[in-house]
């Protein structure tokens, strides 16, 4: 056995090296992605050529493996194009939505800036020659205060707001202010005031000066047109700034505010007393604060979700589990919009890479965009798409395909119809939910739950019904209806309609009318409702709806009586809406085309759980390093394995403290004697082994093993699995991670 062992030892050593080079997963993936991007780009320009090349292979339905392979790569390109199309659309939608949410606050801030500028100006501007004078001009203490806008971002994490402040800067600049922003790094103890002023000068004057001081700023301001525009300094995140530095900076600015009209804008991430906690009192005194509130992350999230998942025309949707996961992740882990957007992007990418037919989304999009007329290029493109699609449809992946036939057009139009009615229903519910503060994400999660789509329980038993449902899968929609959970949000929302006062109900109906515009059959119902509402009111008092609320106040009793049946009507309408049109996406045939369901993948990509990953990879290294020797005998440790793997395996045998000496000894044993550990056969024939191994053992000197040992220990320390020896116990390391 032993003679054969030696060559085995030698060859895997090389193969592991090779394997590590080629198979080291993270790097490999990164590399691959970038190259794919390139190829995608090159493909974009050579699109038409490839299409023509491909069209002959499309129609031959006969599976020929070679052609299939080529097909696969072609399809991948198509999918990538679709991904680009869809994601760019989503991204622009998100950006627009975010900008819209901030516009109002930005306008407020801008108005306030100019008001305070006017106030500073009204104190009397010093003559321009005195502005650069070093000694202070003496005015009343009120004139030395700094106007300060406190912008409450309402989120402890600042990631989302970096962009917001950048946009605020652009907004103010476009109105003629001189804007400079200071980050928390520039206001740290390390860079001190000099760093702040230098950064101000760099942004305002576009020069870098060695000895930066306020005189430069003053003379620059005089050159810019004295007292024409305010100077706005934005401090993004006051909590992260170094308090003393910021205080000094504020006091210094306040001494100059008569000469340079500086207005501060500070972002406050937590509570409004954060400035009082951070700044010194003499700095606080110089501030004349004014509060502005940005939209809370939950509000922004709702707006984004509504725009992307409900209103957006690109049809991409997520499954129930994914929605639940995203909601939970947002609430529990990381309440930032940035991470939500990232999650959506990951979902998109995953969907388009894994789902063969996902490129059909591009077709849907294109159809949507140039509604009737299609130029030749697009038409041929669509043709190619549908050919591929019909090939793929006959695949066993879509079990329902035979029932409906391969008519792709039908499938797609069906999907589109579903999407419209579904989003209309959810939006209608959301309109009601706004009154009782039900979150859109909660509603969405429930609306996507496929378990809530239950068979109708009529005189037949439900079991029979279910059998029927499975046997006639084609007429499946007729037999099932959406029944909301008794304690769920949808049920709550429907109940809520009953308690709405008349004016709100009117508002609601109006908003419903707007929403349902694209689905005629629902729209008709809403119109009827609205008409009935108007008629009902017309009987009771006048025809004018505009002053409903006043009337409501004056003739309370009468009004309530007359509007009561209206509420019930609205409720029953909503009920029927939910039971008839609410179909969770996962219950729709061919939903795989547009719906991303794989929550595990998303979770892995988003959270990662690196420490666990590291441990698993260390313990099951043979999955990554695919050498023959290690995967054959898993339980024994071979010296060809990576050092840190060996070390970590050995460490598993210890408790939370590992004696370094013992550890080293066992490491040495494993490394220098190939099969000494747990293998009794070596004992049976010691002589040939010794003879064979002697040169290699000698070559590995004690020092080199020790060096390898040290490297491995520090590697384990860096990966966070170990803690180095403390002073109290110099010969022990401590294990930090236990279990998986």
């Amino acid at each position: 056995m032993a003679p054969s062992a030696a060559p085995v030892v030698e060859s895997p050593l090389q193969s592991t090296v090779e394997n590590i080079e080629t198979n080291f997963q993270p790097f490999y993936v990164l590399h691959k992605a970038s190259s794919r991007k390139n190829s995608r780009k090159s493909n974009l320009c050579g699109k038409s050529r490839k299409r023509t090349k491909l069209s002959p292979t499309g129609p031959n339905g006969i599976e020929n493996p070679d052609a299939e392979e080529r097909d696969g790569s072609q399809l991948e390109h198509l999918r990538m194009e679709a991904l680009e199309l869809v994601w760019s659309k989503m991204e622009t939608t998100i950006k627009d939505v975010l900008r819209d949410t901030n516009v109002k606050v930005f306008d407020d801030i801008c108005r306030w800036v100019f008001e305070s500028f006017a106030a500073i100006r009204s104190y009397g501007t010093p003559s321009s020659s005195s502005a650069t004078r070093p000694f202070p001009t003496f005015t009343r203490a009120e004139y030395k205060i700094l106007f300060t806008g406190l912008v409450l971002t309402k989120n402890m994490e600042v990631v989302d707001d970096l962009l917001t402040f950048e946009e605020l800067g652009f907004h103010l600049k476009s109105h003629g202010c001189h804007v400079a922003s200071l980050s928390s790094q520039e206001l740290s103890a390390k860079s001190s005031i000099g760093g702040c002023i230098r950064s101000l000068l760099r942004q305002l004057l576009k020069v870098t000066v060695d000895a930066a001081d306020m005189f430069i700023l003053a003379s620059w301001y005089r050159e810019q047109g004295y007292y024409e525009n305010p100077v706005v300094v934005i401090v993004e995140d006051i909590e992260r700034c170094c308090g003393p530095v910021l205080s000094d900076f504020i006091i210094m600015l306040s001494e100059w505010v008569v000469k340079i009209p500086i207005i501060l804008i500070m972002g406050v991430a937590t509570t409004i007393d954060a400035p009082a906690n951070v700044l010194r009192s003499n700095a606080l005194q110089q501030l004349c604060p004014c509060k502005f509130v940005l939209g809370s992350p939950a509000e922004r999230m709702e707006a984004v979700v509504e725009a992307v998942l409900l209103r957006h025309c690109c049809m991409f949707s997520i499954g129930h589990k994914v929605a639940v996961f995203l909601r939970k992740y947002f609430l529990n882990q990381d309440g930032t919009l940035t991470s939500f957007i990232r999650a959506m992007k990951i979902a998109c990418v995953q969907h388009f890479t894994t789902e063969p037919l996902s490129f059909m989304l591009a077709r849907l999009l294109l159809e949507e965009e140039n509604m009737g007329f299609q130029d030749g290029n697009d038409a041929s493109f669509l043709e190619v798409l549908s050919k591929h699609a019909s090939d793929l449809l006959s695949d066993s992946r879509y079990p329902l395909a035979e029932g409906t036939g391969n008519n792709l057009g039908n499938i797609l139009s069906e999907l589109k119809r579903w999407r419209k009615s579904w989003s209309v229903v959810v939006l209608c519910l959301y309109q009601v939910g706004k009154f009782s503060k039900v979150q859109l994400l909660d509603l969405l999660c429930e609306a996507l739950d496929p378990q809530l789509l239950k068979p109708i329980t009529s005189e037949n038993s439900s079991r029979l019904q279910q059998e029927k449902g499975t046997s006639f899968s084609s007429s499946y929609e007729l037999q099932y209806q959406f029944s909301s959970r008794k304690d769920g949000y949808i049920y709550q929302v429907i109940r809520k309609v009953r308690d709405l006062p008349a004016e709100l109900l009117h508002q609601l109906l109006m908003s419903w009318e707007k929403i349902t515009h694209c689905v005629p059959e629902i729209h008709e119902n809403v119109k009827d409702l609205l008409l009935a509402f108007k008629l009902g009111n017309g009987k009771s008092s006048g025809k004018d709806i505009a002053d409903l609320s006043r009337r409501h106040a004056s003739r309370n009793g009468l009004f309530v009586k007359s509007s009561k049946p209206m509420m019930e009507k609205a409720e029953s309408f909503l009920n029927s809406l939910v039971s008839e049109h609410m179909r969770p996406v996962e219950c729709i045939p061919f939903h795989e085309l547009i719906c991303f369901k794989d929550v595990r993948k998303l979770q892995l990509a988003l959270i990662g759980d690196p420490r666990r990953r590291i441990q698993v990879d260390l313990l099951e290294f043979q999955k990554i390093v695919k050498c023959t020797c290690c995967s054959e005998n898993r339980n024994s440790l071979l010296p060809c394995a990576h050092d840190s793997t060996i070390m970590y395996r050995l460490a598993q045998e210890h408790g939370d403290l590992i004696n370094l000496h013992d550890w080293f000894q066992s490491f040495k044993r494993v490394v220098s004697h190939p099969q000494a550990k747990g293998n009794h056969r070596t004992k049976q024939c010691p002589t040939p082994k010794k003879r064979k191994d002697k040169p290699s053992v000698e070559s590995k000197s004690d020092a080199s093993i020790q060096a390898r040992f040290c490297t491995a220990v520090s590697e384990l320390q860096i990966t966070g699995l170990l803690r180095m020896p403390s002073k109290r116990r110099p010969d022990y390391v401590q294990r930090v991670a236990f279990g998986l």
Partner: protein
Amino acid sequence: MLPLFVYGGMSVGKTSVILQIFRHLNRPFVYSSCRTCYSLRTLFECILNQLLLHQKDADNGYLSAKRCEKPSDFVNFLREALVKVVKTLQGNPGKLGTKKLTGQEHGHMIYLIFDNLELVRDWDKSSSILPFLFNLHEVLNMNEVGFLFISNTSPDAYYSNMGYLEPIPVYFSEYTEDDLRKIFMRNQTNQEMYSSFLSVVLGPFYRITRQVNELSLTFSSLYKTYCEASDDLNNVPNESSKRTRFSHFQPHIAPALNQIFKISSPLSEVNNLKEAKRKGGSMKFSGCDSSEHLDFHMSTSAKYLLLSAFLASRNPATLDASLFDSTGGTSSRKKRKRPSEKSIEQKEISEQELLMKGPGTFPLERLLAIFQCITSVAEISLEDEQGNVLMESQNEDSELMSDVLLQLSSLCNANFVVKGGSCPLEGSTRYRSTVSEDMALKVARSIKFPLSKYMYRR
């Protein structure tokens, strides 16, 4: 001539008196404030620029006249510049263009004024800079140059037996109540009204601060409310109207005494604010608006982490076992412990100590242990109370736990948890929670966590 050392409290008129004197006597001077000139180099260059009549602007690329970083260079440059200036002063008095160095009838002195000298103590190498500045007049040895130092702190804070002659101290005393009254009565349009206002306000405020700038800021806003309290601003105040006005005005005084800065809202929100004011009485800073719930977003796991940091800082580490016993032994343990504890006096002493020490520090491991305890407890209770937890909750624990360290760093960034410095790889960093109890309770309420159950009190 020996340098003058002018000192006195904040805002007692040191700088303004001196500048007014110079203006009145029409003497040339070079003023440099150690606040605007935040480092040695800027201070030197600022002085030299003024002496050489140099202005930084776009034409000269915003550069100083001379680049000067070392004190020795400064002495040379300064001497050069001063000699030149003094010569011109002697040669043709009254012909210099700028205002600073305008004409001389009385002597040929030039003065260097250093304001806010107390800030120099915080600079690097302040121990060598200060003696250098105090000694400058001897080094230069020019009779035509006078030095003035202005400082908040008394000369004792500077002298360190470094072998220079002590400058002549000049003390500016604080204003008395009468002085303040006279100061504030100046330039008032409605003298009688203002004097009646001062008689109400000055007494209580004088006990708190005597700084004119602080007082004038508060008084200007208070005076507005005082005037609003009366019907007519120009109304001649007689005794009865004074009294009614006082009764209207009195509730505003007490909050203003404690308030450092008042936060206003833009005009669009003013109406809401006014309503809030009406409801909540005075709009005191950190007062009524932050009462009920948390007004910013935090993820749930960050909330739990914040609470566990708060608990770790608050509770003594020895009681962790009894408080977080997963078998629910909290109450029984407490009962058993209470009588068997040492004498009450000793406890009180230790309690006092705890109070004086403030929030304690804790290692990361303890924080994580507590975090795990309270999240597991919270999940159990959540499942019991709410049937409609939409998701399957078997792996919720791991999800809450998943990136705790990330959450911790964002808590640190938000100043809720303070980190003591040490090697990050070592892991022996100690943390301290700076959250107030109110805040912690608010957070606990928002996630329905029974915080008081876990807090150790006497």
